[in-house]
């Protein structure tokens, strides 16, 4: 079931992004075809999950990942939502914080076997989930920053204030899930 979903989603997304790539290559719209190219790469990433022994990510996380790719690469960058709607960026960062929070829970379960979990404080869960979402946000902003230095010039054009709001929204999302995860620790 999980395998089927990964295969279907990745193929559909790769086909969609390839279509966009060809379309914008013909139009010579370099910022858009680059996003589409990046979209192909990120859509293909979950395929690697088919080859690992135990895939820690459940179906909601996988679907959540493709929702994120669609909202940022297609709606955000190609359909211009990032520019047209001011809240789009912040909203996505909030969503991303929550998403990474759930990824954190999945990784926690992967790396710490069931029988060892009773010897792990709930603070570890709390800190791990929160920190992971902070870490991903930082990597994301670094990616935007480096991208702007080289070829896009649009991702961080809102300046410092925008970057900070991105980070604050993402951390808030992560915080919610980290509170949830530490409260629910025994059931994880």
């Amino acid at each position, binding site marked *: 079931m999980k395998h089927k979903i990964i295969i279907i989603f990745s193929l559909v997304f790769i086909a969609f992004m390839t279509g966009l790539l060809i379309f914008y290559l013909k139009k010579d719209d370099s910022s858009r075809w680059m996003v589409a190219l990046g979209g192909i790469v990120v859509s293909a990433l979950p395929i690697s999950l088919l080859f690992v022994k135990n895939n820690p990510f459940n179906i909601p996380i996988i679907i959540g990942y493709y929702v994120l790719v669609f909202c940022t690469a297609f709606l955000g960058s190609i359909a211009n939502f990032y520019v047209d709607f001011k809240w789009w960026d912040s909203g996505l960062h909030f969503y991303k914080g929550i998403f990474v929070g759930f990824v954190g829970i999945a990784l926690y379960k992967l790396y710490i076997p069931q029988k060892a979990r009773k010897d792990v404080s709930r603070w570890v869960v709390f800190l791990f989930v929160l920190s992971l979402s*902070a870490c991903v946000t930082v990597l994301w902003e670094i990616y935007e920053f480096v991208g702007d230095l080289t070829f896009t010039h649009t991702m961080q054009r809102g300046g*410092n204030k925008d*970057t900070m709001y991105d980070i604050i929204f993402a951390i808030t999302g992560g915080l919610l899930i980290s509170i949830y995860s530490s409260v629910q620790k025994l059931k994880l």
Partner: protein
Amino acid sequence: MNRKLVISLSLVYVFFMGALSIYYYTADETFKSLVSIGGVVCGAIPLSLALFTKLQFNLPIIISYLIFLFASQFLGSILGWYGLGWWDTFLHLLSGSLLAFTGIALYERLVYRNAGKEISPWFVFLFTLSFSALGGVIWEIYEFSSDQLFGMTLQGGGNKDTMIDLIADTIGGLIIAVWAGVRTKIKLKKI
């Protein structure tokens, strides 16, 4: 023993900063005087932890914390080394690794020893790296909100400065996290 050392080192720092704040106050240097008061407060944190709690201290962390305060508050703000340009970045690199060590210490405190054998080195790596990223992020949020609420200019360098700070934090954390992960892996092999 550790406790006495922590108390005396923090006391030295608190007195040093207290003297500076009085000195700069009489010399009519409000900014430097305020920074020194901040120094007294920051130095008082390990001091009061040592006096009023039963926490076990990790001496290397407390010492690097005090060195970091000295480098940031005294050398950076009062002697003006932040004006050098690279000083700020260098300190972020240091604070990133300092935070990573704090993460490791916390992790070791919060996980019972017999669970340690079961936990993947990747968890240690991710926990350490992410913890230092979290610290960097909270620091930038603090700078940002001080700027917004009190009209200060901690992030005066704009987006580029914020980003370089964060990159330096992350690199500092990454180095220690790799070390922590590898160390855990070697430990697990021995068992």
